[in-house]
């Protein structure tokens, strides 16, 4: 027991295991107010919806307590970062506690909206019961349960960040892993054909995957370093630098690409004219060149947007200017901002192209060959998982090194 108490790493890993167990248990608690079997059948019509859930820790095949997953958390975070880009003073100076309260409120609102939407999709399967003010009590209860579920899992994510290993990202792993086989075989209901597996095919896919993992790990670590000069520090120790990652957007474009792509379908599901439905089905499907091109464009656009949101050139240039630091050769202020933005665009372009090709190429090839399309989703998931795990490994490395200081021996690397 003392071994566990003393070993920081072991403690964190155990905590994360506990969190994951709780999460998995929660995923199995079905909503008591719904006719499950019928709801499952109903939800199959909205299969495009599944992928969004998979990449954000939820699942929509069966309505359970934790169905909505972490999407509100992630969306809330992104919204806050996007708002920061506007560089409004009131927001810049928000103290941390107010900031996190605002974030939680955003999560609550988004979670509520998503809960409403899910229950609406399966409204016909709600078990009949009492009525209040014209609304079914079971409807209200279902929504409330879903909201409670998602807020609970958001809290779990916070706990994992503080006491466990891997933070938010790691909690997405189980649903990512479990969704991958299904997605591989059936696609995402966006028009890609299913795959037929032969041993030969599986072997090829495995090899390609492994190569792919290595290239992704390598690209994930690639970064361009802008040298920063700091007049206020007089040590000739290590130069300071501002890293701009090639994958500046991380894997977030892939997490949200499908959800953006299905927005038209989604709006249409609320009851639109037949011709609109046809239009959407035609051009927002991955079984033709228009849809595929659109999808690739979305990934590219999201990539650039997220890259800027993560780097925030304006804020950096401002803070450099204020602290007296500068990038050699560039006047502090606007000139520096333009330079940083330029660097972000060029460097992240490589990363974004990588992302687009990884998920676009299989789709394009899939228009002409069999058994290729769904690889796009496989690669997307792999990229997401690699970036998450990279973070976790970094964290572990740091934790390990902090426990092993010894003045009489060099440290084993």
């Amino acid at each position, binding site marked *: 027991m003392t071994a566990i108490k003393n070993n920081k790493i072991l403690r964190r890993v155990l905590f994360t295991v506990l969190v994951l167990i709780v999460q998995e248990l929660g995923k199995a608690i079905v909503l008591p107010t719904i006719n499950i079997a019928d709801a499952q059948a109903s939800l199959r019509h909205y299969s495009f919806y599944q992928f969004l859930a998979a990449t954000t820790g939820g699942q929509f095949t069966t309505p359970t307590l934790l169905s909505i997953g972490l999407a509100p958390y992630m969306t809330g975070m992104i919204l806050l970062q996007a708002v920061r880009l506007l560089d409004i003073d009131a927001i810049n100076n928000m103290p941390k506690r107010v900031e996190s309260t605002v974030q939680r409120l955003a999560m609550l609102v988004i979670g509520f909206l998503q809960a409403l939407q899910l229950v609406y999709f399966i409204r016909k399967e709600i078990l009949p019961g009492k009525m209040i003010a014209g609304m079914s009590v079971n409807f209200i209860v279902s929504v409330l349960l879903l909201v409670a579920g998602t807020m609970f899992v958001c809290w779990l994510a916070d706990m994992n960040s503080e006491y466990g290993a891997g933070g938010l990202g790691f909690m997405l792993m189980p649903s990512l892993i479990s969704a991958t086989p299904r997605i591989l075989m059936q696609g995402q209901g966006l028009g890609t054909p299913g795959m037929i597996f032969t041993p030969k095919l599986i072997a090829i896919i495995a090899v390609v995957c492994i190569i792919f993992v290595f290239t992704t790990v390598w690209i994930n670590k690639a970064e361009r370093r802008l040298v920063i*000069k700091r007049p206020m520090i007089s040590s000739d120790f290590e130069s300071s630098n501002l890293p701009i990652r090639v994958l500046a957007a991380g894997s977030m474009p892939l997490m949200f690409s499908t959800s953006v792509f299905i927005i038209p379908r989604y709006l249409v599901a609320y009851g639109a004219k037949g011709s609109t439905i046809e239009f959407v089905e035609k051009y927002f499907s991955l079984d033709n060149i228009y849809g595929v091109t659109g999808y690739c464009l979305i990934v590219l656009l999201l990539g650039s947007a997220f890259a800027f949101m993560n780097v925030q050139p304006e804020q950096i240039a401002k803070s450099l*200017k204020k602290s007296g630091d500068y990038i050699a050769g560039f006047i502090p202020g606007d000139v520096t901002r333009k330079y940083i933005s330029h660097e972000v665009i060029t460097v992240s372009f490589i990363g974004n192209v990588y992302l687009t090709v990884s998920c676009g190429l299989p789709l394009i090839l899939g228009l002409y060959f069999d058994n290729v399309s769904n690889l796009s989703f496989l690669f997307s998931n792999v990229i997401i998982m690699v970036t998450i795990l990279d973070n976790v490994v*970094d*964290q572990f490395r740091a934790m390990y090194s*902090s426990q092993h200081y*010894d003045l009489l021996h060099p440290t084993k690397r």
Partner: protein
Amino acid sequence: MSFNLNFIALRKYRKITQQVLNLEADYKKLSDNQLKDNTRRFREQLQKGATTDDIVVEAFATAREADFRILGMRPFENQVLGAVMIHFGNVAEMKTGEGKTLTATMPMYLNGLAGPGAFLITANPYLANRDAEEIGKVYEWLGETVTAGVGLNDDDKVDGKVVYGHDIVYTTNSQIGFDYLIDNLADSEDDRKQREFRFALIDEVDSVLLDTAQTPLVISGAPKVQSNLFMSADKLVKSLVENHDYEISEDTKSSWFTATGIEDMETYLGISELLSEQWSDMYRHLVLALRANTIMHINRDYVVDNNEVYLLDTDNGRELEGMKLEAGMHQALEAKEDVPLSDQTRSMASITYQNLFKMFTKLSGMTGTALTAAHEFMETYNLPVLPVPTHKPNIRIDHPDIIYSTMENKINAVIDLIKETHAKKRPMLVETGSVSLSRLYSRLLLREGIVHNVLNAQSAAKEALIVAEAGQPGAVTIATSMAGRGTDIKLGPGVAEMGGLLVIGTERMDNQRIDDQLRGRSGRQGDPGESVFFASLDDKIVIENAPDWMDDFRRKTVAREAGQKVVPLKSRRVRKIINRAQKDAENNSESGRTSGMEYDEVLKTQRDIVYAFRNKIMKTDQLDQQIQLVVNYAIKTVTKEFTEPNKELTEYVINNVDYNYFNNTVLQKRSSSIASVEDKLNAIVKTRLEQRTQALQSDFQMNYLRRLSILKALDTAWVDQVDNLQQLKSAISNRSAGMHNGAYEYERDAKRSFERMKQTFWKSAVKNMCLSELVPQSDGSVKVEFP
């Protein structure tokens, strides 16, 4: 909120308080000797295994009775309650004037029973000495030893070893921190002064643990090479034009060059590309000069005294002795004020107050204003905050703020109020935001012919005397916020009928707590009193923290008032602005403290290892094993760095092992591999060390020499590491922009830097052991000279 959980604890404390009070009758009957004997009894019990919690009731009753017999004051019920809270490791919020000094006697007595290790930390040396002397009589009467740990004046030297041998020590936070750092630079066990850190009761705990905890304690030394660019950079910057060549930020906390400014400077200097690598040193000096001239203000941030630049404590306007700005900033100030440039120094040892006080087994505190910061106490120090009800109800009248649009209007209003109040001979305490503002008000009052005192943090002893008189009829006292803390203001004859002491705040301070402390100076112990704060839209706190649109608002308001009689601004919006500005300032301070703490975590891990290693070396008699390892790895490191082993080997030996090395046969044989180079070097070093051992007279001397060699090598390497980490801390905050976790990167780099430090340590240790000289002194002792 925190209250609900503390409710259970409060019930327990009230019960204990009642038990203590119940013993009063019995203890009154005890003779002096019987009472004193209790101390012996308690000590025996503690030795047999009882804890202080077991004997708290009796011990407190003893101290309470002793207080009455020695000081003439018996602690009231609420003071006993406060004492109980303190003993159990809480912060007791006791309003000013409730008698905190007397309350402290009970827990200090109890915790001093186990021997040295009980500390009462107070705000300044004057208070430490005063209380140690006056209150100390009680402890001494009861059979404990007590002393002040810090000299009354700056020049007073205190014998640390003697001080820390006392059961109870009254000292300041900076003194105890410095002593800790210096202890860990000691050469031998005997030189170490401090012992256990068992119990600390911190007076004015919010000021010590929160306000001053923003700056870590740093010992500087090890001067660096001086640069001569400071003067020329200053001259150039003084010739620049504001808004044309440089700009100052809205909150006046930063400034920068514009594109035109850079061009102008390039023309002046006759160069192009000022921002290139080539001119980075010149540019660095220019940036420092710009900040010195535009952001730092004389008499607000620093003063010039005796041809030297002294930093000012922004809270209370006191001169900070021995503290200098880092990285050349101080020298830039000296150039600006045209005083001789002092040496640039490096940090040699540092610790944050948070980590210093976390080392105590039990921590507690008392103050008049803690509840507003309760969550920070809990998060950082695990200290719950509990309120103690006042002995008599508080009847002070606190007026809402009076706000003006400009500083000028506000100052006029303040002077008018002072004139009006003074005419009735009612005493006033006027608080200002800085030393220069104090001087301004003083001049204005002189012009009006009003006699007054100014407390500007020159001498704590004098201040205490002046403050004590501040409640007399006709007294007008001007002070910066921290001046005269710890001294009660008693009301003179007739003052209570006039409504008591009037406290005037001339601006809102950096956080609510300081404002509340000021208010608390009046209305103590149920006395009548009044407080009112003035504010203007020109105040420092508003300018530094208010949103951008404030500027426009101010201008419009001033324009609107033009030509009309000046009246205070009444709108709710204005009130909200002022409150928001203060909240923002508070939050900034808090996050500054939290992030400072996070970075010190890494330094703390390394520091703990180094200090523990030092202690082990000092205590171990047989150092053979350690020396073996050090030599081994030093040689491995050195040989790895060789590019031409055969040539460099000789060089290395002559410079690091033996100046007179002469053994050609060994060196002439060419080595074929790294391993053989290592072996050769190993043999040479081993021979050398044996030679030296034989040359020395005794084992004792040899061990002494070796121990010192290792310690000196470690200390020099560690000093560099501390300085590096200080710099790295500021540098790393930029890296979090790359989505890598800033704290992890800092830890990684700190670890790499630590590895390099280890290698330096090994190499110097070997060099020290091989080359240090023992120089006999005339008095028979032996001095060690290092290479």
